[in-house]
């Protein structure tokens, strides 16, 4: 079968102030009608750039410097602007990542649909309106007649992305490029949108290029996959084959680094392709550490009926105000030396719990006991603050861009009065060495480091005060899979060697399974189940826990990593209820 879209040796370059940056280096792939072709890689791999190049939407000053793009046999890459514009919509279209910004907020859904339909198809207004209605129905939007006249801001995220899909389809293109179409959506909605894309592709024999960094999405949605790294294609082929029996070293290590839901690993396999990051010297760190005594039976934290409300709808009269119970009567213990996980979807309140424990919010009700002493908001919490620290989610926002790295690391210890002067400088240098960045890094600014390196700086900052308790709020959600493994291994080492007690917040169930001893499941501000990790994953009791577990991506096709250095796999979990 002749491929619908054929890309051969595509090269895209961006001239910058410091030389030419090659975003895509001789990449080739092809897509057949009805095929969903995944394009996977970590950030900087060039996958989005390929999508933009095919659409003719490359950001200035990028341009195609080599290779060809053929659409239905015709060359597309060398065309001028008006010719490319004629193709867009009619032959090839694109789904963007963020549905919030993809739709013009000032026009109704009907207006945007009808406009696109009448631009490309020769139909009357009435017919166009009918088609719009049919499309909304097909993409699964309830009450489409009413919703046609709504504005984008009146739809939720998942619904909005369905509208986007309808818009993309209404001009009847042959090829669709979907650039991270579900990354900005809630986990529970992601699967639905991906299924929709799959059905539509088969139904209309449309070729889809699905760009993503998520292996689970690749495993569950695509027929073929192309793996990219730093602008080059590493491996390409049918999904089952590439994921089940990868041939390229990079693909192998990428797959190995994906946390598995069905086994408990002792350590995370790291991506070793492309050179290692400098190691983390945990033994040296542990030698100079005041390790606390740990009695695993005794609780370090006791949290009782913690409640926090936020004002959702302000009004002049108190009775008209609407509050949102972000955290609603949550109670649990954290034992000394344990890793306690909290899982939930976005907006469930898990981050708010972390912030309440960290003293960043004042609870509206409930009690918090640390080491048998109550922590009261408003009192002098210096002694408490010396013993806790936090690792944040976004490495690009957790470091002050205008502060030098050494100042960033020194700040907590200095402000809490633990160290000063030469001792402080010495501690900072030592920590920078231990986390593998080198003491010279102290003179630099955060923007000179990668995401993974920044997270190490964050860790160094947290360790400077030698805390007893570490709160990790989604510490790896914003990182590439390869870096994720590194950071998680570091956190595991820290916890074991330094007798740290940890609170681990995440929405990523496989990661939680590897990291935590006990887990609490939180739904809309309420703790619905607390159990030992293995118990939760093998025999969940609460219906919501079962629901969450069912949303985990099925990674059965993925090659099982070489487990000789890791713990033996447990029996596979039973099928979800």
């Amino acid at each position: 079968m002749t491929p619908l879209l054929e890309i051969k040796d595509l090269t895209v370059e961006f001239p910058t102030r410091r030389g030419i940056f090659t975003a895509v280096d001789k990449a080739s792939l092809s897509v057949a009608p009805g095929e969903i072709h995944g394009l996977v890689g970590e950030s900087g791999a060039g996958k989005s750039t390929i999508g933009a190049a095919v659409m003719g939407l490359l950001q200035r000053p990028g341009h195609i410097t080599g290779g060809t793009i053929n659409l239905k046999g015709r060359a597309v890459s060398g065309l001028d602007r008006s010719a490319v514009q004629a193709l867009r919509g009619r032959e090839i279209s694109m789904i963007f990542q963020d549905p919030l910004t993809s739709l013009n907020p000032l026009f109704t859904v009907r207006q945007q649909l009808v406009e696109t339909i009448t631009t490309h198809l020769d139909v009357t207004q009435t017919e166009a309106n009918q088609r719009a209605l049919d499309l909304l129905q097909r993409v699964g939007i309830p009450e489409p007649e009413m919703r046609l006249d709504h504005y984008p801001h009146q739809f939720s995220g998942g619904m909005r992305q369905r509208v986007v899909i309808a818009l993309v389809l209404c001009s009847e293109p042959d090829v669709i490029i979907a650039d991270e179409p579900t990354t900005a959506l809630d986990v529970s909605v992601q699967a639905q949108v991906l299924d929709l894309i799959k059905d539509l592709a088969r139904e209309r024999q449309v070729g889809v290029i699905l760009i993503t960094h998520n292996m689970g999405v690749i495993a569950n949605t695509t027929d073929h996959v192309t793996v990219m790294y730093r602008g080059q294609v590493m491996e390409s082929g049918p999904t089952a084959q590439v994921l089940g029996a990868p041939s390229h070293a990079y693909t192998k290590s990428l797959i190995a680094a994906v946390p598995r839901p069905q086994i408990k690993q002792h350590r995370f396999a790291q991506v070793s392709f492309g050179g290692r990051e400098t190691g983390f010297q945990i033994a040296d760190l542990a030698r100079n550490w005041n390790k606390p005594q740990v009695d695993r039976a005794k609780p370090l934290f006791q949290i009782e009926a913690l409640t926090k409300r936020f004002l959702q709808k302000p009004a002049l009269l108190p009775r008209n105000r609407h509050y949102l119970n972000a955290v609603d009567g949550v109670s649990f213990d954290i034992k000394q030396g344990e890793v306690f996980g909290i899982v939930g979807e976005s907006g469930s309140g898990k981050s708010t719990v972390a912030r309440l424990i960290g003293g960043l919010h004042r609870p509206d009700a409930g009690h918090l006991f640390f080491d048998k002493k109550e922590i009261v908001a408003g009192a002098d919490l210096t002694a408490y603050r010396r013993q806790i620290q936090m690792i944040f989610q976004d490495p690009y926002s957790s470091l002050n861009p205008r502060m030098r790295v050494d100042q960033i690391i020194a700040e907590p210890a200095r402000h809490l009065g633990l160290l000063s002067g030469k001792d402080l400088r010495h501690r900072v240098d030592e920590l920078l060495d231990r986390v593998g960045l080198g003491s010279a890094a102290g003179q630099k600014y955060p923007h000179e480091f990668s995401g993974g390196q920044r997270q190490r700086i964050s860790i160094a900052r947290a360790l400077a005060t030698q805390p007893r308790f570490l709160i990790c709020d989604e510490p790896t959600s914003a990182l590439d899979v390869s870096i994720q493994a590194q950071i998680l291994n570091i956190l595991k080492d820290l916890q074991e060697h330094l007798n740290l007690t940890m609170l681990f917040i995440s929405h990523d169930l496989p990661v939680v399974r590897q990291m935590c001893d006990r887990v609490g499941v939180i739904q809309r501000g309420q703790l619905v189940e607390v159990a030992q990790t293995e118990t939760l994953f093998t025999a969940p009791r609460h219906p919501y826990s079962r629901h969450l577990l069912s949303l985990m991506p099925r990674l059965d096709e993925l090659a099982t990593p070489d487990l000789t250095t890791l713990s033996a796999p447990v029996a596979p979990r039973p099928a979800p209820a």
Partner: protein
Amino acid sequence: MLSYILRRVVQSVVVLLIVGLVAFSMFRFMGDPIDNLLGVERTVEDIDRLRAILGLDQPFVVQYVKFIGNAMQGNFGVSYEQGRPVSAILAERAPATLELALVSGLLAIGLGIVLGVYTAIRRDGWAAHVIMTVSLVGVSLPTFLIGILLIYVFSVELNWLPSFGRGDTTDLGGWSTGFLTTSGLKALILPAITLGLYQMTLIMRLVRSEMLEVLRQDYISFARARGLSERVINFRHALKNTLVPVITVTGLQIGSIIAFAIITETVFQWPGLGLLFINAIQFVDIPVMAAYLMLISVMFVAINLLVDLLYVAVDPRMRGEASQ
């Protein structure tokens, strides 16, 4: 949405009351209020009577309320300098300023939007660069210099247009208009250009930067990806989204026009409210200053309220319908 409108109306009333307070304080505490009200020619009996009527020994709040009450009826006292009731003077001078502001405003807003859109769409063309450079000069030239320059070129050297005054005006039932006579229209040209040019430059640069910002948005890229033509994207999507923030600032610009009229009227000796105000400041004519203040406050507040209402009408996100 209703609560939003209500809040804005309440805010407007509060603003007017505050301005009234400032005006009243000026009235009461700067100079002698008796002088302000009676002018220079008065007798001792007048003073005593007025003192009793004004109730100058009454609490501040009572006097303030009386002042506001008077103001709402149009009674602002007597001009210290001219000896005439202030309200009469204001009524006399208002048409001149309003007509000037109208013509300049149309020029500034109309041309400003057109040129702003053009330089945004064709941002790399040489015409756009020339216009932007000239506009930079326009923003750097104070209004009075533009006026002087125009007078020098068109009045003194070329002798085409008059350099001061309004020309002949026709009286339409209390409103003296310059639109109906040739000399009136001729006299309007230079002041209107002077006043409008600066404002037009500002509006043009604003529209251009807003439009460039809109053109960078994702929904424009998506529209392009769907194959809509550049013309449709520019004039249907981008323009509509640009005009929303532009409306707010344009409203403020109208206020700016009325304020900058002060300068223009000074340069051209245009007999409007602006010239009146400047003279009042120089002679410390409190009643006129206070009255001018209150009058334009009402104008500004009304314009702002209108702009806010317009904003709600144009941007559906402001209408507060529940999202699902």
